[in-house]
């Protein structure tokens, strides 16, 4: 059925063309309007835009968009107008007939700012009925912003035919915007318009209402003022919600980077300055997995992260065990020396990665289920941030459960609480040490998989997280995973709420200074372990 219909439509258009061909002398209003572009007069051009846009002619869209881009050429002598396509081919604007070349005497039709607005509005209304949903939505938005009176009829026409709910809302808002600015609209219409725009409630609605001018009826002006007030207060709430969301998102990144450190530093008391490099190794593992998938099994790309997570855990964890066995076990009880040795290790690992993969950023792609965003009220939430938040919480819960309920977790806690007693009970303490360190490093590797989705994968990836991670662990309290959780989210949210006030860098400095001051008050962090030891 549709094919039949479209075939019929085509033949109809074709016959129209034939008529146009057959009767070139019988110029309709469309052709007259097109000829006006050649007058080189701004008010004529404006009139022509209105008529062409309202004509419903198939050529209207190419003509107006050519006008916008300076591709509409007019010959003042012959009054002929040509559209030069982006591909360099030209057509006669009045007939749509292809022409070999545009005469030299033709020049581009000039625009001024007022005309540019009309062009935008005309284009907006022309695309209002486009079959593409996104194009319709954008057209409705652009009419909402330009609110040209000429667009009222196309908008109402489109509104009557529209079936999609969100486009319909957008068109209704566009109509309201036009009516609000239309001088001869009735007071009732205008009040309804204010209500519709108020319901939209975003920054654009605010801008529109703030600029309605003074020549409005008193009741409309009053309604607009109250609408502005209510939009502003709801926007303020939304901006706090947005800050909170950004803060949670940053907090989840911090938590992810710090959680492995909470194991190695918090539980074992080992200062691992190469922790950031474990994160980096995880990110590079993701890169390698994606490279292999890209070249061999492109269909699996969406599962690349699922494959990378266990691999990154094994790679980083394995390197962690190796480090513990070869370096750290000789340095237990000498925290400052451990710090220096692991710093040296971080230099070696960074340089090794730089030698293998090059110093530049490596491209790690987002799988389809992690790209894109959705709107929640007035804020936009990207899927990758949401997934990272969920992933972080999942890692946290699993880790907590592991420490609480598994045999290895029990042994780990036993060894950290009283090493000699644990050894006397038959726990192989050195094995537990190696596994604990491997676990912390492995979790850092998993963090690297997640961070590769939002950060540049470069040899310096780890360094940018190491100071923040230590801050989180120290702030939250060493040896306490819950402290790390609270610390990470507190710092993330505090950072994002300070940012709009103080700027990104000053906000960060302020956080660092606050932590330094905080440590003065509570040298053992937010959730200090209670104990009798004079010195930790």
């Amino acid at each position: 059925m549709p094919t039949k219909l479209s075939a019929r439509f085509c033949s109809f258009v074709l016959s129209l063309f034939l008529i146009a061909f057959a009767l070139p002398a019988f110029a309709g209003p469309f052709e007259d309007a097109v000829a006006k572009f050649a007058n080189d007069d701004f008010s004529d051009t404006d009139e022509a835009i209105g008529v062409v846009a309202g004509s419903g002619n198939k050529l209207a869209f190419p003509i107006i968009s050519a006008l916008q881009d300076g591709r509409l050429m007019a010959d003042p002598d012959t009054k002929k107008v040509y559209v030069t396509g982006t591909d360099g081919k030209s057509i006669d604007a009045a007939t749509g007939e292809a022409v070999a070349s545009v005469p030299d005497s033709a020049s581009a039709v000039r625009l001024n700012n007022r005309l540019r607005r009309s062009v935008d509005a005309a284009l907006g209304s022309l695309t209002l009925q486009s079959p593409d949903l996104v194009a319709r939505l954008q057209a409705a938005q652009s009419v909402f912003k330009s609110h040209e009176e000429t667009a009222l009829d196309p908008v109402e026409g489109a509104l009557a035919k529209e079936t999609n709910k969100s486009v319909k809302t957008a068109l209704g808002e566009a109509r309201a915007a036009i009516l609000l600015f239309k001088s001869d609209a009735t007071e009732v219409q205008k009040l309804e318009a204010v209500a519709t725009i108020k319901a939209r409630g975003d920054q654009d609605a605010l801008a529109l209402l703030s600029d309605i001018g003074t020549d409005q009826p008193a009741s409309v002006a009053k309604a607009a003022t109250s609408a502005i007030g209510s939009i502003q207060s709801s926007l303020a709430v939304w901006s706090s919600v947005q800050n909170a969301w950004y803060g949670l998102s940053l907090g989840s990144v911090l938590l992810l980077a710090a959680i492995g450190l909470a194991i190695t530093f918090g539980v074992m008391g080992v200062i691992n300055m190469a922790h950031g490099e474990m994160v980096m190794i995880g990110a590079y593992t993701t890169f390698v997995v994606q490279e292999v998938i890209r070249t061999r099994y492109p269909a699996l790309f969406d599962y690349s992260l699922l494959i990378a997570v266990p691999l990154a855990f094994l790679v980083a964890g394995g390197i962690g065990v190796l480090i513990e066995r070869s370096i750290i076990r000789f340095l237990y009880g000498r925290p400052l020396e451990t710090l220096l040795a692991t710093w040296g290790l971080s230099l070696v690992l960074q340089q090794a990665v730089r030698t293998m993969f090059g110093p530049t950023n490596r491209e790690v792609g987002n799988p389809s289920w992690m790209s894109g965003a959705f709107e929640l009220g007035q804020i936009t939430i990207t899927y990758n941030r949401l997934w990272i938040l969920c992933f972080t919480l999942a890692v946290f819960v699993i880790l907590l459960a592991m420490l609480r309920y598994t045999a290895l977790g029990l042994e780990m806690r036993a060894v950290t609480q009283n090493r000699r007693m644990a050894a006397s009970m038959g726990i192989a303490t050195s094995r537990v040490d190696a596994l604990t360190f491997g676990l912390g490093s492995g979790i850092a590797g998993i963090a690297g998989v997640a961070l590769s989705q939002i950060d540049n994968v470069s040899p310096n990836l780890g360094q940018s997280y190491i100071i923040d991670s230590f801050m989180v662990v120290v702030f939250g309290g060493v040896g306490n995973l819950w402290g790390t959780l609270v610390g990470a989210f507190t710092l993330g949210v505090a950072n994002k709420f300070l940012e709009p006030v103080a700027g990104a860098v000053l906000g960060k400095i302020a956080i660092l200074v606050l932590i330094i001051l905080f440590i003065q008050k509570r040298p053992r962090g937010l959730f200090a372990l209670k104990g009798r030891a004079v010195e930790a």
Partner: protein
Amino acid sequence: MTPHMLTRSLDRGATIFLLVVAALGVLIPLSNLLLPAGSFLQVPTYLVALWGKYVCYAILALSIDLIWGYCGILSLGHGAFFALGGYAMGMYLMRQIGTRGVYGNPILPDFMVFLNYSKLPWTWYGFDMFWFAALMVLFVPGLLAFCFGWLAFRSRVTGVYLSIITQAMTYALLLAFFRNDFGFGGNNGLTDFKDILGFNVQAEGTRAALFALSCLALILAFLICRSVVSSKLGKVLIAIRDAESRSRFLGYRVESYKLFVFTLSACMAGVAGALYVPQVGIINPSEFAPGNSIEAVIWVAVGGRGTLVGAALGAIVVNYAKTFFTSGVLAPYWLFMLGALFILVTLLLPKGIVGTFSAWREQARERRPAATTASAAAEDGITEPKMAE
């Protein structure tokens, strides 16, 4: 008996060290200035500047050794004090440029004209006078160290916690100094210096004099550290290093001792930075990078923590190696070597070069016949009163 012998052997080492530094401080400038260029014994000007840089690093290493080696405070932010001293000197040098800058503004340095400053920020007042700048070289790092230390030591932040917050301190300063509107030249830092006290910074004579001054500063810093660590105060510091709580229970005000030595050390680092800047011709925020401070700690660890000579030697040896390796075909491997140095020194050479050497000599001495040991003990008896002072 053992510590006396150690002290005496170090004393001899210290004397040799001071003589060598003094000789270099006199001979290198003389050879540079008096001998004809290109002659076999003439030290080229670029080497004078390079060695001047090493000497400044040696002063920084001494200041770190004073707190880490003798008081157990591992500061990972000493580069901040070094850089602050450098900035104070850099600000003086900027004010000396005057109308010779690109924009020719008599008051405002070029970058301020560029950033549309209408008048000099208050932080720059007085830096056109050398004595004021010189005072600030000591005062600014000292004040920061005093405030920071007062907060940290009073609330008993120790060990790795202190290390991490000193690192956060230098990181915060790094971020602040990178900002253009902070008023200290932003990421470009301060550079394009013309003259110091009326002498051209680029001139050979000035460079030679700066080198000699750096050597003099190293000698003075060494003597100050030496007198601190060999005094009664130094004994308390070592006690704090080895058993902080016990020292507190014995009635010493641990935090006051720590605060004193931390502030002194920061001032020394500031002086090192101030001498460094005119010799390298630039100071920018990357001097605050946490990596620099940790690298300075490793110089001390390589040379020998708790031996002043070792700290200075370590700084020179590591930096000489850095220059040597980063300029040749081995450049990509320098970070491997530096990293390996960190790991190997902490694992295999915890006392550093000088510490291991004197321990080894001490062992050799103990194996000698009893008669020699007795005479050595007698000598110790003579040196003992001197040490107690």
